[in-house]
């Protein structure tokens, strides 16, 4: 009877106690916000793997994971939620298993599909925040476009080699979107001289953990429409670890998606008339 009057079970109080006493979380109030939050994570790879357990551990109540890839041995130096015995298993299912054991209070939904214009709205609807942990410009544009149409905040990150980048897009519908930053996609053939696509595990891992920090701050309303300023963070792991924050442009009135007269709308996306493949080229961009 006593238990029933509390906003959480005693097990949850014990589980989250050490974070609830940090003043910035605002205690029970923040914990309930976390429990009610619905976060969609797209990609359970180098960014998603270190991010997901901190979301689940913190008590984010509803987590969706979109990934149709299966675990390969070559992933394991950086995709540390998976392991050698899971080679061949779907990454979203592998991740779910680990997270469900870490925190049984969290409800986890998996989407073992390739994200595309025809299925994105159906997957996104019902979530509050979307995390872009993917690895091609094509999906980065698509995720941003769909999130703008649905008014969802995006935590977008990427990494390569020893570096990484992170930004919050379309914050509460007021922030700039991916297209505001990158109205024109990079030409597929202009990347030839950049180093090939290797990556240091903990360097991309650190950026994934940064995504978790940003997501918790969005849920706990550390960022507000009053204090939010568009930014892009740039991390470098070598030779010294540095983290720079660049002050970025706001929403562009002329943006095709989030601007005053958008041509990229739910109707144009779902009808397939926004040709993401043509727009971005088919070359594997994962090189620069």
């Amino acid at each position, binding site marked *: 009877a006593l238990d029933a009057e509390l906003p959480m079970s005693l097990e949850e109080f014990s589980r989250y106690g050490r974070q609830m006493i940090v003043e910035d979380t605002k205690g029970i109030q923040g914990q309930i916000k976390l429990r009610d939050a619905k976060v969609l994570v797209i*990609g359970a*790879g*180098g*960014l*998603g793997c270190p991010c997901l357990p901190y979301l689940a551990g913190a008590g984010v109540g509803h987590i969706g994971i979109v990934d149709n890839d299966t675990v390969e041995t070559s992933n394991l130096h950086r995709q540390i939620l998976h392991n050698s015995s899971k080679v061949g298993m779907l990454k979203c299912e592998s991740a779910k298993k680990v997270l469900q054991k870490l925190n049984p209070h969290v409800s986890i939904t998996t989407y073992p599909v390739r994200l595309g214009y025809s299925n994105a709205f159906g997957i996104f609807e019902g979530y509050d925040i979307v995390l*872009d*942990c*993917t*690895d*091609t*410009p094509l999906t*980065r544009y698509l995720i941003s476009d769909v999130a703008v149409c649905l008014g969802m905040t995006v935590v977008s*990150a*990427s*990494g*390569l*080699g020893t*570096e*990484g*980048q992170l930004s919050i897009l379309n914050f509460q519908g007021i922030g700039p979107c991916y297209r505001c*930053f*990158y*109205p*024109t*996609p*990079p*030409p597929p053939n*202009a*990347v*030839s*001289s*950049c*180093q090939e*696509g290797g*990556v240091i595990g903990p360097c*991309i891992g650190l950026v994934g953990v940064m995504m978790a920090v940003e997501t918790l701050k969005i849920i706990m309303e550390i960022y507000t429409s009053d204090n939010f300023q568009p930014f*892009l963070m*740039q991390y*470098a792991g070598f030779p010294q670890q540095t983290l*720079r*924050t*660049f*002050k*970025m*442009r706001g929403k562009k009135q002329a943006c095709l998606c989030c601007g005053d007269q958008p041509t990229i709308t739910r109707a144009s996306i779902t009808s397939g008339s926004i040709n993401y493949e043509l727009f971005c080229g088919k070359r594997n*961009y*994962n090189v*620069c």
Partner: protein
Amino acid sequence: MVNVKVEFLGGLDAIFEKQRTYKLNVEGPDGSTVTVGDLIDYIVQNMIKNDKDKEVFIENDTIRPGILTLINDTDWELEGEKEYVLEDGDIVSFTSTLHGG
């Protein structure tokens, strides 16, 4: 003439002899003020050794799509882009957008 620091981040150092930061003295075309546009011309003419690499940095006479330009850690769109007049000590950063995840 103006003394500025230039940075090539996000893998762009690959076309600048793998060096991320340079300190430059740049002269303007008229001998007085130097804009970011002048700086970009200087970089393309003097610092990219391999002609084929120029298209990694420049497209249609401006910075290639997918590269962000920052002036003192601020998006150059907020600072006047190519028209921004450089002052001694300014830091101009170019960073390639990363896509890996």
